[in-house]
């Protein structure tokens, strides 16, 4: 149990109901000052609702939420100057430049000597400082959104899906910025459905599913306590391997293109599977055996894939 004074955020039995839908169901957790806390969950799990309550833009149905020791329902204007928020699907004024946008938000926070150039440098937008927001690509917009979230030099930074919709390169650029925040000792509340993002950046991971908090701990703890198996990935030419593995009592999962993933206890089981497929004359194009990662833990705990379907996910440069 940590000292409450060390808590940047304390959520206790939080519930949010929309009519008959229970979006958040008795969620409790704490976030220590200076840690990167990653909030994971499938789409519609209640992540954004929880974040929006914590950052004071929604009201809880019941339970309590304290940010930097203040109650979110009573001390909105005590909390907001000390936090920075990148909301989901962030947008800004189309016809303001990057610099003007940062200047505007710094005025909203009544910042005395805002370091606009420093922020522009931090998110690597120096070349785009005079560009209108509407002309920025998705990745640049997200970087500007992060800079806005930092304009008041906040103690706690909330980033709600900061890399959704970005291509791998743009995503890595955002990760670099987040790692910089971590080094500066900021408390970061990161909502994401990208497991590698959480695994790379987070000190603590909390997994929410169907409105309930189902697991919490460091990425290593979660993997060790929830995934005592190996993941065998087989690259196959046709579907015969699927039947063969099913007959052997395994539960293979088809993952395109032409691959099957199956959980095994140890190396002996891997050997057994390979021998059996060879005997059955099933052609094998390739294989990979590895320890499970956070994605597999997530899959196991929630029963759902963490990411949106490839069709729904758009990449933006």
């Amino acid at each position, binding site marked *: 149990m940590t000292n409450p004074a060390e808590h940047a955020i304390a959520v206790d039995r939080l519930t949010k109901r929309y009519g008959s839908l229970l979006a958040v169901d008795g969620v409790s957790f704490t976030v220590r000052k200076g840690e990167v806390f990653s909030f994971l969950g499938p789409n519609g799990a209640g992540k954004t609702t929880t974040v929006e309550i914590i*950052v*004071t*833009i929604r009201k809880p149905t019941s339970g309590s939420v304290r940010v930097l020791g203040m109650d979110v329902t009573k001390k909105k204007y005590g909390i*907001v100057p000390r936090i920075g928020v990148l*909301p*989901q699907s*962030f947008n800004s004024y189309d016809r303001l430049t990057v610099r003007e946008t940062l200047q505007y938000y710094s*005025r*909203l926070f*009544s910042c005395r000597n805002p370091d606009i150039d420093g922020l522009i440098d931090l998110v690597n937008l120096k070349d785009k400082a005079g560009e209108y927001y509407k002309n920025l690509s998705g990745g640049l917009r997200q970087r500007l959104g992060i800079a806005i979230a930092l304009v008041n030099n906040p103690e706690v930074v909330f980033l709600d899906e900061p890399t959704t919709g970005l291509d791998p390169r743009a995503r890595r650029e955002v990760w670099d910025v987040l790692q910089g925040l971590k080094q500066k000792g900021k408390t970061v509340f990161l909502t994401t459905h990208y497991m590698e993002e959480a695994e790379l950046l987070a000190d603590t991971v909390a997994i929410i599913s169907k409105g309930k908090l189902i697991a919490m701990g460091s990425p290593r703890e979660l993997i060790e306590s929830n995934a005592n198996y190996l993941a065998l990935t087989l690259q196959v030419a046709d579907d015969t391997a699927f039947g063969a593995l099913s007959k052997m009592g395994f539960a293979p999962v088809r993952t395109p293109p032409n691959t099957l993933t199956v959980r095994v206890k140890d190396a002996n089981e891997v050997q057994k599977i390979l021998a059996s497929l060879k005997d059955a004359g099933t052609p094998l194009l390739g294989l990979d055996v590895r320890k499970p990662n956070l994605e597999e833990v997530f899959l196991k705990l929630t029963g759902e894939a963490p990411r949106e379907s490839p069709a729904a996910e758009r990449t933006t440069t």
Partner: protein
Amino acid sequence: MNLRVVGATLVVNILSFCREKTAMFFTLAFPVILILVFGTIFKDQDSLSFTLHVQDLDRTELSAQLIKSLTQTGRFTIVPVDPAVAAAQYAKSHKLNLVLIIPKNYDRSLTERMSLDDLAAFATLTYIYDPSSTSVDAKMQLLSAVFAEINQRMSGKPPFIRTEATSILAKKYRFIEFFIPGIIAMAVMTASLFGTVNLNTELRQKGVIRKLATTPITHSDWILSNILYQFILAVLCTVAMLAVSYAVFSVSLQLNAWLPLIIVLEVFAFAGIGMILTRFVKEAQSAAAAANAIMFPMMFLSGSFFPIEMMPGFLQTFARLLPLYYVNEALRAAMIFVDHGATLGYTAVIAGVAAGVFIVGVRVTRWEENT
């Protein structure tokens, strides 16, 4: 209330407006174009003159004199029609709404009446007319008035009933001067209602308002900055319209302290209606359609373009329920009649409406759809 925050948001709105050419056009240029178009159309209404096609079948000195006296009224430009053509066919083929026929023997009948004092002698002038034309009645009435005067003069006795017109206004006003206050009221309504609806729905749909909700800006800071923004647009719009009216049409209107007061109240009233509207109609396009549905009937029914006395009784009663009617009347009372008592009465009604809808607007406006 943080004035620094209000000022910063106001500057952002003004910068965005100045950088959006379409918005600038519809807010500033459109009402000016309306003034120019309608001003030109109605410029000569007070000295309206018609083109009159006349077929003189008599072709005598006396019939020529009759045509000359029509010309001398200054209301008709005469176009002669060949006596050999069929007048009705001529009117149809030339798309004319009226041809006047002076009959053969006009000269003889007139001589019999004047020289021989033969009361049985008379001349029948024929109107060949198109009843579907909207302006033909005015033309025929004018002609009949001219002929009645000729008949009266021929009787040799001074008229018994005479008329005298005394204007209730200090000076003679032209139609354009009545029209301008209506257009100002309409332009300010459009800017405030549409401005509020667009700003609220667009920023909400884009998620900008959700971001602003995580900053120290308060609800009242946001609303005050938007009202100031709408007021600045309304003032710019009014100044542009008045400048064009003075420069192009040399209008003579009273500019006094009532004008900014009425405009600021109108901005509050229509911004309030806009806020109420966007609370219940959330999509930008539907909200714009709803704003149009409110605006258009109001524009035509509340006397912006023509006096409401031209409408049927029940519509006149309905017009008196519309806030824009009171803005039109207040502006006309202030700028044309310079009747401070009447202006005060109308302004009080606008102030009441503005206070009511604005308070409701502020109360129903939410930054989040479901908090």
